[in-house]
């Protein structure tokens, strides 16, 4: 690094620290106007969802030990945590089920939900223990098999994941079974086959809206990985056109657009999504490329949000933080340990990518080795990952 660039980086870091103190150290104040709105709630009290939750809560309050109503309410909370992107709902689900978790043998429905909550906290091993316990009591619990397959896939344990999909063939609709397998196949060298299966599934007339989203996003992801930009774009944008608002879809589509250099489209897609850290991160990356004024504020916000998450001692956001540190702060030395820590927990293509990119930028070829092994053992078909892997190997010569 030459001198002037070093000074630029120093100045930039200084500015970021300054922004951080601005965001973090607000003095408490006394508003002068009673009408000042401090907070908007997720739901208006007259909203049907809010009413439903209220009804479920009050029936549970009458009989807090009633397993069925507790499971019902907790399930609704978990669904809300996903649709609203608010982890508070998960904590509320956990609180409702707490009485059963303290028992020595929690009933399967309570255990299943605990596994789901742990899955969200990235406590994968502990979630698998719960799932296996459910399955030992209820071997025909389709939900438990599917969740198990999903966790094993994230852990890159593909053989066990495939085995977990198998029972779904007789327990659920054929499309769930096939989609379960196709998701794994798409990552492990069978993209073409996987795409054919998924496309056939999409023609299934009885698919629900959320199943359609699931399958389309999978198709789009596989097409993006194999470099079929047209198909990927079509899969993502067709689903978006149906008016589905889904944060995972937005994030995946934004990544696709960023890779194609379509920064303006990313800004249009995400400019109102500043509350979700993962989406704000992608928006800021696009803003940086376009040199937009809003970039600095967004980076400062992200810094304080990652700091707040660290303060509470959780690390659910490590993948995002590694990407933020590498791409927006331009600090590979700090990004690499984050990416390595993340790889120990989750091993999806996005996790592989941030580790390869950080290792390359930090000039640390050894750090990339676990990903190179993962790529070759599983025959992962991902053009960008293969390109990065080639760069790493070239550097070593």
């Amino acid at each position, binding site marked *: 690094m030459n001198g002037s660039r070093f000074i630029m980086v120093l100045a930039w870091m200084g500015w970021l620290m300054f922004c951080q103190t601005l965001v973090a150290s607000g003095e408490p104040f006394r508003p002068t106007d009673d009408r000042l709105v401090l907070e908007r709630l997720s739901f208006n009290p007259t909203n049907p969802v809010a009413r439903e939750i209220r009804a479920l809560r009050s029936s549970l309050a009458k009989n807090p030990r009633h397993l069925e109503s507790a499971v019902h309410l907790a399930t609704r909370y978990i669904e809300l945590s996903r649709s609203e992107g608010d982890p508070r709902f998960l904590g509320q689900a956990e609180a409702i089920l707490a009485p059963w978790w303290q028992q020595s043998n929690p009933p399967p429905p309570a255990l299943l939900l605990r596994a789901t909550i742990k899955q969200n906290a990235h406590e994968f091993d502990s979630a698998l223990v719960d799932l296996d316990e459910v399955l030992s009591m209820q071997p025909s619990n389709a*939900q438990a098999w599917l969740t198990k397959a999903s966790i094993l896939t994230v852990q890159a344990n593909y053989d066990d994941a495939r085995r977990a999909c198998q029972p779904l063939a007789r327990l659920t609709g054929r499309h769930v079974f096939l989609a379960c397998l196709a998701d794994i196949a798409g990552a492990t060298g069978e993209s073409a086959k996987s795409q054919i299966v998924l496309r056939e599934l999409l023609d299934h007339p009885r698919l629900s809206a959320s199943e359609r989203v699931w399958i389309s996003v999978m198709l789009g992801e596989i097409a993006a990985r194999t470099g079929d930009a047209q198909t990927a774009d079509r899969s993502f944008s067709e689903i978006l056109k149906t008016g589905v608002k889904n944060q995972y879809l937005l994030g995946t589509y934004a990544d696709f657009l960023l890779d194609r250099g379509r920064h303006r489209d990313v800004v249009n897609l995400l400019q109102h999504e500043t509350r979700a850290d993962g989406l704000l991160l992608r928006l800021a990356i696009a803003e940086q490329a376009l040199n937009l004024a809003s970039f600095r504020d967004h980076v400062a916000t992200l810094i304080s949000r990652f700091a707040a998450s660290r303060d509470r001692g959780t690390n659910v956001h490590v993948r995002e933080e590694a990407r933020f540190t590498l791409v927006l702060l331009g600090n590979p030395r700090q990004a690499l340990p984050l990416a390595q820590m993340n790889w120990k927990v989750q091993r999806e293509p996005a996790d592989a990518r941030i580790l390869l990119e950080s290792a390359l930028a930090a000039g640390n070829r050894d750090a990339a080795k676990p990903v190179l092994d993962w790529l070759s053992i599983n025959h992962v078909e991902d053009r960008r990952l293969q390109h990065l892997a080639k760069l790493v190997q070239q550097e070593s010569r």
Partner: protein
Amino acid sequence: MRHVLFAILIVLFSQPVWAHKPSDSYMSLIVQKSQISGRWDIAVRDLNDAIGLDTDDDGAISWGEVRTNQAEIASYAFSRLKLQSSEAICAIAIEDQLVDHHTDGAYAVLQFTGICPTEIHGLTIDYRLLFDLDAQHKGLLRLSNETLTQTAIFSQESPTHSFTMTEGSIWQEVRQYLREGVWHIWLGFDHLLFLITLLLPAVLIRKDGQWKAVPDFTTALREVVCIVTAFTVAHSLTLSLAAVGLIWLPSRLVESAIAGSVVLAGIANLYPRITQRRWLMAFGFGLIHGFGFAAVLSDLGLPSDSLLLSLMSFNIGVEIGQLIIVVGLLPLAYALRDSSSYQPLVLRAGSIAIILVALIWLAERALEISLFSIQSFV
């Protein structure tokens, strides 16, 4: 079928993109003798979930709704917090309720005082806020006394934490005063400027009424060591005498004299015939600067039981800060001493600039007026 639908939702979002962070509250407690002054920030959304703040059912929480529910908020929160000092419960008096914004939205800020029966040596905190409603809620604590800050996280699994409020080890105290000393010389522009002014000609030598570059580094170093030592001895002397209360000078006089010393040091650079012995000047004015350091030290509040230790630590801190500047400055000046621009640009123009700045300080301090906002940096 509904069962499977739910399953699919879970697979689809195996990577949640959180739009919020989980529920946290932030508590900061400052312990002083038998009192605790506390600030507790609780998310408005959490308070709404716990006690219902949206009285007009519009899906938004306004300041008015928080304000009219202040009593309920306080009784809810403080029924879930217990402060205990050596087996005795500390009474909590609510001082005020304000609002602040954190990264994830608005928080009610509860300011309170904890009053314990005796001086606090050990503190046990039992925190049960919101755990019954949100099992992932956490309370993030910063607990400080004069010497030490400790942190802890309250969660459902660990709702109780105990702390020892040590007096602070001697080493911590030494470190604190060392740091203050270093910062004082760096942030006190007047001391810095005085030293720099004296050091500027140290890489030159007077021959036949003219400045010449010193022949070797040792010569320059000897001169610098003389000046810095004289300055140090002098200001340590007056600093100590003032700190123990043997001498006292009005601060307006001291501050003006310090500014005056910078002016004179600058003039001496322009008219070297005034004195050849700059170490003598360093010593004389060093006495004045010592009074300035003493004022800072008394602002910090010297502990009466370890006066000597903190005095020495502060003084050593000042010397360290001074040395760092010399070490940074001297090689630079030495490297430039031969260049044609050192004398006109660095020595003369630099001294003139310093004189001007110091004259402004002198006027401001002697007349107690503010000519420029430079004062605010000092």
